[in-house]
Each structure stands twice: as structure tokens, then as C-alpha cells.
């Protein structure tokens, strides 16, 4: 609070970045938000401090002092503040506010959605990874739960509960972990029951030019033995070969096929976090240009490389899926540290092969498992605290985009719509909920997030209705449990609603999604009406005394009929409360 110099500035103008629209209003600065209230309409724009990625004060113009704010959810706002002094105050206040140095300063620790402790706890219990492994059929005769990492001693960035082959003894695990970057040894992340094939993940081996580790070799042998359907294990190194070679000089590298019996080694060629960061910057530069020509757009889009990177990730996932579902082979996936590209490929791969992950609940489980628990460094990648800018990278955004590209190809296969993905993206950066804070499970426990913050999943679940995909067909998923996406380049499109989510002038004039949602809502109402009417006709002719009641039902039904449908209106049933609806009927 002590950082806020000016809580309110009047006569501020908001410029649209693509049209010439100008809105006048007042700017308020609170401890958590920057709020712009339009003076003409009852409209306001509020920006969470954590969402602000960068700010720039442009040079003074005749109309005032321009302040451009770029947000992590790709909102770009351009304010013009009349007095330079006010602009400077806001700028310097924000500078302090948006660079928190400790986790306790994050919004999640002060956010209170008016829930009691029990509700909060229930929210955190929504996702249970133990139950998730049980759903896959683990533990089983070949895979078991190990307590080797109970105190985060073997690997501090892994979760406590890990699943390994039955034949992998403790010394093998410990030995293998010493031979892997950051101790991230091979563990199970998904078990494909139908073929008994496993998807495992780890970090790169510390092989250098010639080093070997017998325990690590036994570990891979154990993974191979756990699957009787295939004589070998695929080892997918998700890096470009050149990067992996370069790592050898630093005593790291990749598996030598000669040392490991029964492995098939494969490079996939996904670029590293730095390339991805630069690529996104280029993309945003291109699409942020006003009055862009068609050639600049297409050439710019391509030279940013963004869609090419997205395609590379999907390609890798497709490879993984084919190996597991068609060949029935187990696959071990790694990159350098095994928390960026590995998380992308594993999570996207299992999303393609297991319809459960394509439901709302399943998708939450997937993110909780492959991203949060396996230690994707959300704090550093999303720049939650004032940290090293070189560690920031849109790895998780890419994952969400890959999923979106798949929903475009398979509109019936996903329970959730684009809005669900956008909302998750929003909150990965908002720091409003505890789920994504910190870098790994151990850190989260130390921060006591379960006790001190709320879970995003409970919130999203409570408004599930808003995220349903009207095209979703469970029957389709039953018929096509494994999705086989095409990765031809024209299947990868620019995700307008992500990168232009807040640019109203970029939105389409009519949205099919909205149309279909309205249609569904109409059908649902008609169904209720049918039910109401049926109950009336059923209870009727015996006794005359019930007749008035019947007609009141009918009134309700008529009202429902006439009600213009806008969007997800809460359902007010006419069947169960004849008194109330009768009153409403007469009143209207």
C-alpha cells in the first residue's frame, strides 16, 4: 500500500490499438489492480498487477503523457494521462507493485473468495493424483509406487509419490538418479493399459562423451521388461540433435544406443526456451502492427516461427502416440532437465490417447500431473517473482495452444471449449490461486499453499457450465479413443482469440460457438417445458381441485418460451415450485 502514490487519476484517455477509438475515463490504482472506469458507459477495464509484463512511458505529446502497458494475457492498453506528474506517479507506483520479491506478496495470499476453511480444503481435494494412477491401472504386476523420494532426497523437483517398474530396486533408482540432470530419473507418467505400454519421463543422462552408468542402464532395462508387448523401449530426446551434442561437452548429453540394450533412440527437434521466448516476441510484434499488409502478415507470421514450433510439439506427440498405441512399445521422453519440452510432449501425447484427459476434470488432472507435480517451473517461466528474465518462456502457453489447435481439428472430441483454455491461461499468470505458484511440489509444501490459498480447479469447476463445448460428443470419443491429428502446416492457425482476446475490433461478427450455445440453451428450455407440461397432463383429470395449479404450470411454461435467450442463464425450473411460479405467472 505504501507504494501507491496516486490512487486516482481523472481525465485519462484509453486508445484502441487497432482502430482510432478513444475512450475517456478515470484510472484507479489499488493494491492489486489497475482499474480504468469509462466515464460515458458503465464499463471498466481492470488489470491485475501480476498480469503486467512491461510498461513503457512514451514521450510527452500535446494531449498528454502516453503510458503503454503490455500484459501477459496479451492485453495491450494505451493510456494517455493529461498531466505528466500523474503519469509518472502511476508508472513508478506500478513499478514497485509488479515486482514482488517474495511469494507472500502474491495476490493468492490475500485473495479471499468468501469461502470457509472446509470449502477451501475440499477445493484442494478435487484432484487426487493417486486416484489418477489407479484409474490407469497402476500399481499393477509390473509397476509399483516407490517411497524413495518421500523426503525429496533423491530428486527435489519431483513429487513424493513416484511409480517405477517392479524390478527397479532402490539402488538402481538412486544410481540412475545420480546419472541424470537434477536427479530426475526415469519414472512413469502414463500407463496405456490396453497394450501395457508405459510413457516415462526423465532428464538427460550425464553421459558426456563416454560416461556410462550401469544402474541407469538397468533402469531402462527394467522399463523395457515391464512391457511384454515390445522388445525395446523408445527413447525420445525432444531436443534438436545439435543441442544434445552441445550438451555433451558439458558432461551431459544423450543415451548411446550401444550401451543400452533394447532401446531405440530418436531426436525430435523442439527448440529450447530461449528460442520460444524470442519467437513469441516476434509474433506479438507482427500482430501488434497497425494497418499490416497481407504480405507482411503472412511473412511475419512465418518468420516468427511460432506456428512451426507448435507443429514440432504436436509432431512429437503424434510420434509418441503411434509408438504406444500402434506398436505397443513403451516410451521414455526427455529433453535437458525434463520439465519443459518433456512436459509438453508427455501431456499432449496422453491427451491424444486417453479421452479422459479431454474432459474438463481430466484436463485439470493432466495439468496437475504432468506440469505441476513433475515440476514445470511455473514461478520462473511465468515470472511470478522478480527473477531472471532469461528463465521466462511461454512453454505452458504453447501447450495450451497445441490443445487449441487440436480442438480445431477435432471439434467433437473435447468436453471444454476455447474459453476454458483461455481462462486457465489467464490464471496461470494471475497468481490469484495457489495451484501454479512456485516451481515444484516441495516448494509448494513449504509455502503451505493448501492452507493459505485457494485452488483454481474448484473455481473453474464451479462455473463448468461456461466452459462446455457444445459440439462435444462422448460417443465420438468412445469410437475414437485415440486421436490422429494431421500436422500439415495449414492445420496450424493463428489463435486469434488468444492473442487478440482483448482487441474487440479483431473479433468476428458472428460466432458459431455462441450460436450453438444459444441453440443448446433453447433446447434445454424446451425440454424443461416438455417436462413441466407432461407432469401437468399426467396429474390432471381426476380431481378438479388441481386444475388451477395446472394452469399455473402452464403459465410458467409460456414464460419460459417467450424468454429471449441470451447466454448461460441460470436455470429456473417451473416444475418443482408451483406456488412461486404461479405468483410469477400472475405478476407477469
Amino acid at each position, binding site marked *: 500500500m505504501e507504494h501507491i502514490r496516486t490512487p486516482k487519476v481523472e481525465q485519462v484517455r484509453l486508445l484502441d490499438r487497432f482502430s482510432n477509438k478513444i475512450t475517456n475515463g478515470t484510472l484507479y490504482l489499488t493494491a492489486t489492480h489497475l482499474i480504468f472506469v469509462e466515464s460515458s458507459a458503465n464499463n471498466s477495464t481492470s488489470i491485475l498487477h501480476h498480469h503486467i509484463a512491461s510498461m513503457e512511458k512514451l514521450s510527452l505529446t500535446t494531449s498528454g503523457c502516453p503510458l503503454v502497458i503490455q500484459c501477459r494475457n496479451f492485453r495491450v492498453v494505451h493510456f494517455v494521462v493529461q498531466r505528466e506528474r500523474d503519469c509518472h506517479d502511476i508508472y513508478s507506483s506500478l513499478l514497485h507493485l509488479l515486482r514482488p520479491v517474495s511469494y507472500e506478496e502474491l495476490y493468492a495470499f490475500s485473495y479471499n473468495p468468501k469461502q470457509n476453511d472446509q470449502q477451501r480444503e475440499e477445493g484442494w481435494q478435487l484432484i487426487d493424483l493417486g486416484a489418477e494412477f489407479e484409474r490407469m491401472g497402476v500399481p499393477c504386476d509390473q509397476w509399483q509406487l516407490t517411497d524413495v523420494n518421500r523426503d525429496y532426497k533423491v530428486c527435489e523437483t519431483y513429487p513424493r509419490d513416484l511409480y517405477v517398474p517392479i524390478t527397479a530396486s532402490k539402488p538402481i533408482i538412486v544410481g540412475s538418479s545420480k546419472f541424470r540432470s537434477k536427479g530426475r530419473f526415469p519414472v512413469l507418467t502414463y500407463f496405456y493399459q490396453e497394450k501395457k505400454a508405459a510413457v516415462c519421463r526423465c532428464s538427460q543422462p550425464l553421459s558426456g562423451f563416454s560416461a556410462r552408468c550401469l544402474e541407469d542402464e538397468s533402469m531402462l532395462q527394467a522399463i523395457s521388461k515391464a512391457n511384454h508387448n515390445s522388445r525395446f523401449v523408445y527413447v525420445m530426446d525432444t531436443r534438436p540433435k545439435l543441442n544434445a551434442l552441445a550438451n555433451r561437452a558439458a558432461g551431459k548429453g544423450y543415451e548411446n544406443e550401444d550401451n543400452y540394450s533394447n532401446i531405440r533412440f530418436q531426436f525430435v527437434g523442439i527448440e529450447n526456451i530461449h528460442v520460444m521466448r524470442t519467437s513469441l516476441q516476434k509474433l506479438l510484434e507482427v500482430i501488434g502492427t497497425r494497418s499490416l499488409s497481407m504480405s507482411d502478415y503472412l511473412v511475419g507470421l512465418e518468420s516468427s516461427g511460432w506456428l512451426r514450433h507448435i507443429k514440432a510439439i504436436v509432431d512429437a506427440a503424434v510420434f509418441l502416440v503411434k509408438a504406444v498405441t500402434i506398436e505397443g512399445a513403451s516410451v521414455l521422453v526427455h529433453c535437458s532437465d525434463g520439465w519443459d519440452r518433456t512436459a509438453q510432449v508427455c501431456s499432449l501425447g496422453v491427451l491424444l490417447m486417453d479421452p479422459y484427459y479431454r474432459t474438463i476434470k481430466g484436463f485439470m488432472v493432466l495439468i496437475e500431473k504432468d506440469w505441476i507435480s513433475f515440476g514445470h517451473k511455473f514461478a520462473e517461466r511465468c515470472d511470478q517473482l522478480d527473477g531472471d528474465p532469461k528463465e521466462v518462456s511461454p512453454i505452458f502457453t504453447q501447450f495450451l495452444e497445441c490443445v487449441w489447435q487440436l480442438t480445431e481439428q477435432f471439434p467433437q472430441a473435447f468436453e471444454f471449449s476455447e474459453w476454458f483454455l483461455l481462462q486457465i491461461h489467464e490464471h496461470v499468470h494471475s497468481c490469484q490461486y495457489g495451484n501454479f505458484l512456485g516451481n515444484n511440489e516441495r516448494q509448494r509444501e513449504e509455502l503451505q499453499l493448501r492452507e493459505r490459498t485457494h485452488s483454481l480447479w474448484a473455481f473453474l469447476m464451479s462455473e463448468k457450465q461456461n466452459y462446455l463445448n457444445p459440439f462435444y460428443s462422448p460417443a465420438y470419443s468412445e469410437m475414437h479413443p485415440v486421436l490422429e491429428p494431421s500436422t500439415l502446416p495449414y492445420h496450424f492457425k493463428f489463435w486469434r482469440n488468444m492473442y487478440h482476446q482483448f482487441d474487440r475490433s479483431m473479433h468476428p461478427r458472428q460466432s458459431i460457438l455462441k450460436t450453438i450455445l444459444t441453440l443448446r440453451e433453447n433446447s434445454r428450455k424446451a425440454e424443461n417445458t*416438455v417436462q413441466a407440461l407432461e407432469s401437468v*397432463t399426467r396429474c390432471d383429470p381426476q380431481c378438479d381441485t388441481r386444475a388451477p395449479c395446472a394452469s399455473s404450470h402452464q403459465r410458467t*411454461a409460456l414464460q419460459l418460451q417467450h424468454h429471449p435467450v441470451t447466454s448461460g442463464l441460470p436455470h429456473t425450473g417451473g416444475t418443482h415450485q408451483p406456488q412461486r411460479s404461479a405468483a410469477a405467472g400472475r405478476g407477469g
Partner: protein
Amino acid sequence: SRSDRSAQAKPPSVMSSDSAEFSPELRVTQDVTYFCPFIGALRGTVMVTNYRLFFKCMDREPTFVLDLPLGVVSRVEKIGTASSRLDVSYGIVCKDMRNLRFAHKQMEDTLRKSIFEVLMKFAFPVSNGLQIFAFEYGQVFPENGWKVYDTVSEYKRQGIPNESWRITKVNDHYELCDTYPSTLAVPVNIPDEELKKVAAFRVKGRIPVLSWIHPETQATVTRCSQPMVGVNGKRSKEDEKYLQAIMDANAQSHKLFIFDARPSVNAAANKMKGGGYESEDAYQNAELVFLDIHNIHVMRESLRKLKDVIYPNIEDSHWLSNLESTHWLEHIKLILAGALRIADKVESGKTSVVVHCSDGWDRTTQLTSLAMLMLDGYYRTIRGFEVLLEKEWLSFGHRFQLRIGHGDKNHTDADRSPVFIQFIDCVWQLTRQFPAAFEFNEYFLVTILDHLYSCLFGTFLCNSEQQRLKEEIPKRTVSLWSYINSQMEEFTNPLYVNYSNHVLFPVVSLRHLELWVGYYIRWNPRMRPQEPVHQRYKELLAKRAELQKRVDELQREVTNRSASTSCERPGSPTRSITPVQTFV
């Protein structure tokens, strides 16, 4: 079994079963190889009739079938193969974005003529003095598509004649202008004699005539060809007076906009050939705007490049820059942007507009028809769209025969150009932005393009109304609209809501334009849609209709009962149907 065609690409049953439509001259050849660029070499049998080439390969499960109307063939060429001198190999270049390659063993005496010769004969009937297949087709449909468009009733629908505009028969025998329709709508106060003087000043006599009139403001869209200004800046009093009359016919505005579709450089260059554009000195109160749309040669080259980029294979790494290098989307954008400016001037500016390019039958047609599609919801229905094509494209003499080259082997003809394809592409772009505003679906547009080439129907034959009349096209051929209107449900957009009074203003931003993959890349089996979402729309709508019916029934029942048991009656027995959407 139809593995080399898009799931939605061909009419389902119109020509397959009925063998009467084939000429008896069939050729069946054993052991022909078709080199499918996606699957690989396939061995099978080929049959060529006077309408189609039919290749069948039984080795595959399901049976592979390639069914190609010969009308789509642009060129057939022999290819020398190094591998075996005994083999004959030839390639077929098609007008619909694909190329095919076949090979077979050298024919012995058993078959006198090679497939090549038969193809050359029947793919190019015009060059061989034969009849185009449409004249032999003769299928009977419940609907008669030739009745869809009637000039006078379409003008009547628009409220013409009225106090400012009249219908003239001056072109009844195509003497004023042989590429115009016989019935024209012109300003009331210009007598027929003066029209002839105006015609003398406009290229090919294509005088400004009415295409569309705004039902409320009386602002009009008129079309013509360029004025014959020439290097000396020639003027025509009659033409100036005529444009003034067009402006005066609209009391709302004291201005007239002249949209010249061409880039200003091209328009200026046309002065050397006796053409040019209206000078603002000569035409008081008129404002001239150039829309920068390129000519037919540029467009042809652009589509040729597009084909190179997408067929058969797409280079993964440079997809977008390759697409950019074709400039196809840029052309689409300019056409749509031009049409949007016209529609905006008429609707928002309440100002009349005159549209022309050089001859007024290519770019002008694109612009007026797209603007009319934005302005008038009638044209967004299936029948309305057919009327729009019949009127703006066919009756006003877009030269389909020359632009497409029906049955003509001269594939390098500089008159060929994908002007109409571009227009349909623009329509598709509009349907993407307004998914509920069009009664027809994507399949409708693809079907039109398929039969633009197929020569099964007479609709797109000839260059002008006069020629069509002379060839007795309506008498001797079947209309494409007969086929389409006999099974409308196939072509209906389930999301359609009749917003007849809404004007569509599309966003012509590049972020909203995309390549029409479902048409241009449909031969690639990997582009096939994974799921029929279309089907899902239909299901949802059917479910709603069913529920609505049930509600109606029950309500009637309840009304009857409550009438018999209680005197209280519902307020109103009439019940409005909930609209599908409440937003626009």
C-alpha cells in the same frame, strides 16, 4: 470407396446410375497405372466416355475410384518415361487444382485407339467440332432451374420501375450492346435515343445501367464499362448528362461515386487504347475512386502459383511465405475491401455509385455482386444467390466460355482467368464471418465450382445472353439450379437465420481471411475434416424442432383440458417461436 475425392465434392447420385446419359463409345483398358500423389501407384482399369474418365482399382480395400468429368481437363500431355520405352505415360492438368498421371503398356492391335486419343477427342469437344456434353445430358429434375431468374420480376422485387427508373427494351435485339441483357433499367428522363449516344462513348456499348436500388434511400448501384476518353481527353455531353441523371434519381445525396476497380496506373494506361476514366472536371459532383484490383492476367498467374504451392505436396517449412508469394489472399482482400466500400457508400452514405473496370464484365461483376450480397439479404438465400449469379454474372455477360475455356484445347489462351472462382472464394470468406447469415452451405459453393467446369449443365456455357439464346441453351440443356433446387436440404446451412433486413459489413482485416482449404486443397486426403460438424448442427436443430413440436402438442392438450376444467385460460394461444439467436 471414393478415396480420391473430397467427402463432399460431387453430387451424390446425379450421374452415376443412369447409363442412358453415356455415349455408347466406351473404352475399357486393362492394367492402367494411376500415379496417385498421395497413395502411390495404383493399377486398375480405365473407362472413358464422352462425359468422364473413370478409373477403378480393385486391389485396395475399399476399392479406389477416380471419377473425373472431362470438362475439368485443361490439358493432356504425353510424358516420355525413361524406365521403359514400351510404356505410354501421360499427364492430365485439371482446371480444379489437381494434376493426374497415368501410364499403361503400349497398346497392341487389340485396342485401336489409345486412351490419349479418346481423351483428346472428348475432353475438347469444341476443338473437335463435337457437342459439349450438356447438350446430351437430358436428365429430368422435379424443379426447372431455368425458371429461377426472370429479369422483370427481379426488377419488380426491387421496386423498378418507379418514378426515377424505367425498364427499357432498347436492347431487345442486342443492337445497343451485344454483351448486355435484353432488358435494362435506366433513369426515367433519358430517352432511348440518347442511350445510343451514351453507348457510343462507353467501351463495347456497355452503358451505365441499374444493378440494385436501396429500398429506402433509393441510392443505386449501377455498372458499366470505361468511358472512351482516350489520350485527348474526349468528352461526351450525353454521358455526362446520363451520370447526372443517375445522381438526380437519388434525392438523398448530391454526390455520385464512381468506383474504378482498376489500379490508377492501369486506368491511365488504358487512355492509350482509347479508354480511360471519368475526369472530375467533366463530371461535376462525381468523385472517382480507384480500387486497385488487378487484371485477369495477374489473377490467372496468382492461381497458377497457388496450385504450385499446394499441389500435390505442401512444403512444411515455408507454407506461409509460399502462400504469400502467390498474392492470392491479397487479391481476395482487395476485392472484398472494394465491395465493402461500395456497400458502405450506398448504405451509410446513401449515395449512388457507378462501378466499372475496363470492359465491365470481370472486376465490375465481382464488385457489384459482392456489394449486393452484403446489402440485400435476399441474395443470401439459395434461390436469391442463383438469381444474383443469373443476373450480375450471366445476363451481364461475364464471358464464362472464354474465362473457363469449356471444351477448348487451347489451354494457354490469355482469355482464361479465375475471376468467378475468386468471387466464390470471397463469398466463402463472407460465410465464415457470418455463419448464420447465409441460407447455403460450403457444399453449395463447391458444387457450383465443380459444375462450372463439368459441362454437365448448361448454366455456365457461352459468353452472353445473346449467345445463350442463339444456342437455345435453356431448351437444349439442363440448368444447374434444377439439380440444386431439387434437393435443397443438401445445400442448406443449418445455422441460417433470415436476417433479411441486415446489411453485412465484413471485417476485411487479414486476420479474418484465410485460404479456402476445403476447396483448394481438398484433393489431399490429409486435409479431410476429421469430423462432420455439419452433421452435428443438423442434429441439434432437428432435436430442437422435435422438442418444439412436443411443446406445441402438450400445450394444446393442456389448453383443452384447462378449458374443460377451469375457466382460466392462458393469455394468448398464439406462441411466438423462440429465435435461434438474439444477437447480430
